[in-house]
């Protein structure tokens, strides 16, 4: 079974984010890391591949500047190889353009199962994976909280408003996982060393046969008009509990007429 795990490489969320003032898109010029949301997908892909003989996990990512730091993390966790699409013309891509590029790259891995995260930490459009599934002509199951496969079908517990549904789909299929489905492993020292010699195929738009005018800022069909400060919520009274904290809350609730 060929399992593809989508991995977004993003600016470290711990570092303060900023918008590029000229394009009003997220500034991605700094060093990038593996999106934490995708570490669950990588772990899930590795576990599923481990249960079906003859399986292999390929990491697919689109990122600027030939960035491989996040890919190396995924390879160190145990993935066999990676495909990176990097092209200057991709800067400013919207979700659909990103999906077109990822779909073209994923196709090369002849996937039986594609795993992505429900939403990325920095973009959180939550639409890229389903767009990819549609472009690849695959069924998709989003919001998975548990995934099992025998290599022919995939069975998913999918979160719902009320609880969860048992969903079944033939392969090839795409599944998006939520955080907490599995506990991502820490790369071992051996894994980190092995990752250094694992193959990373770096592709440009030309390699994928995609017209640069259709993607990136050139092909974006949406624009950000402005970014303004939201109405600030004035912070109220902050008091240290001296044993009277509960009484203060009671008084507040009375004032708000909820008790």
């Amino acid at each position, binding site marked *: 079974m060929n399992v593809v795990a989508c991995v977004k490489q993003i600016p470290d969320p711990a570092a303060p*984010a900023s918008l590029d003032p000229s394009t*009003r898109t997220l500034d991605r010029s700094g060093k990038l890391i593996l999106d934490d949301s995708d570490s669950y997908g990588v772990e899930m892909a590795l576990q599923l591949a481990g249960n079906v003989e003859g399986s292999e996990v390929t990491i697919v990512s689109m990122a600027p500047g030939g960035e491989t730091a996040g890919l190396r993390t995924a390879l160190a966790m145990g993935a066999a190889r990676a495909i990176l699409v990097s092209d200057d013309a991709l800067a400013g891509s919207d*979700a*659909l353009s990103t*999906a077109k590029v990822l779909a073209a790259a994923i196709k090369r891995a002849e996937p039986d199962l594609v795993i992505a995260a429900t939403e990325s930490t920095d973009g959180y*459009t939550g*639409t*890229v994976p*389903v*767009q990819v*599934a*549609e*472009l690849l*002509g*695959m*069924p*998709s*199951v*989003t919001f998975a909280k548990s995934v099992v496969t025998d290599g022919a079908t995939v069975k998913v517990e*999918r*979160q*719902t*408003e*009320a*609880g969860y*549904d*048992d*969903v*079944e*789909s033939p392969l090839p299929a795409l599944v998006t996982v*939520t*955080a*907490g489905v599995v506990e991502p492993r820490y790369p071992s020292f051996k894994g980190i060393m092995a990752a250094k010699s694992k193959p990373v195929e770096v592709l440009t738009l030309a390699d994928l046969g995609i017209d640069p005018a259709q993607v990136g800022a050139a092909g*974006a*069909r*949406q*624009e950000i008009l*402005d*970014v*303004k400060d939201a109405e*600030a*919520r004035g*912070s*109220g*009274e*902050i*008091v*240290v*509990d001296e*044993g009277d*904290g*509960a*009484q*203060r*809350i*009671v008084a507040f*609730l009375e004032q*708000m007429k*909820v*008790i």
Partner: protein
Amino acid sequence: MDRIWVLAEAGESGPTPLTLELLTAARSLASTVEAVAWGGDTASLAAPLGEYGATKVYDVGDLGGSLPGAPVASAVAARVLGGDAPDAVLLPASYDGRDVAGRLSAKLDRPVLTNVTGLREADGALVTEHPVFGGTQIASARFTAEGPGLFVIRAKSFTAEPAGGGPAEVVSAPAGDTGATGGAVIRDRHAEAASGPKLDEAAVVVSGGRGLGGADAYALVEELASLLHGAAGASRAIVDAGWVPYSHQVGQTGKTVKPTVYVAAGISGATQHLVGMKGSKNIVAINKDQEAPIFSVADLGIVGDVHKVLPALIEALKQRG
């Protein structure tokens, strides 16, 4: 704007609240509002959808257990590509709404704007609002390409108001053959036992976070919520940890709540949590760390230990009877 379609989702008792919010928003933006619905019982939706302003319901029909994403997107795309295109499609930011949006976007080759919390018309185009950086800033955006524009809208962005219209006309809009894309099928459904008001409808929400220290302590949150006739919520950290089911999660990937009073107990106030509860009328936070970001949005902040404050609060409320 001439015509807007709203993806109408149904729950157990008719259209979901978010569906009614979208119909209300659509009504203020377009002269004609039409809905797209699915499931075996669309006829019964005609009245409530009509009451909120839809004049027609395109009925995709019974999906026979298939997940809605592929068949519903296919039905909508068939109409649009057949020449019957609205100016915009409003979709709910729900599990199935997002699936339909992604598929529709790829089928129509149109981008989609997600996480929309506001919508207005300017120079004949729809301009969206999106909270960024945990809602501290608001970005406005619009489509620059040919329509229909696709908008995925978060709950509680608009207030639902009936328009008093008669039942909508039901028009059959079957999905056609979805091929392999329609292969995902629901085999069984599991609902968690729910008591008290719904999280996104309650006047009081009490949420707990990792500061509770363990799954057992969530009982304090539930007890307090029940004493206040409210609902119990949670941060993602404790949902991921398996302390409480996902249906309790408040925030970017969970529910948006706007109660009269929101109580955050042992929650740090990460941006992804704040976007889901910042719209509450009043916020009470209990956290032992004076620097916790949750205090920046709190009307009343108690710097203290949840294990002291919550039991004392519960006791005081019980005393009042």
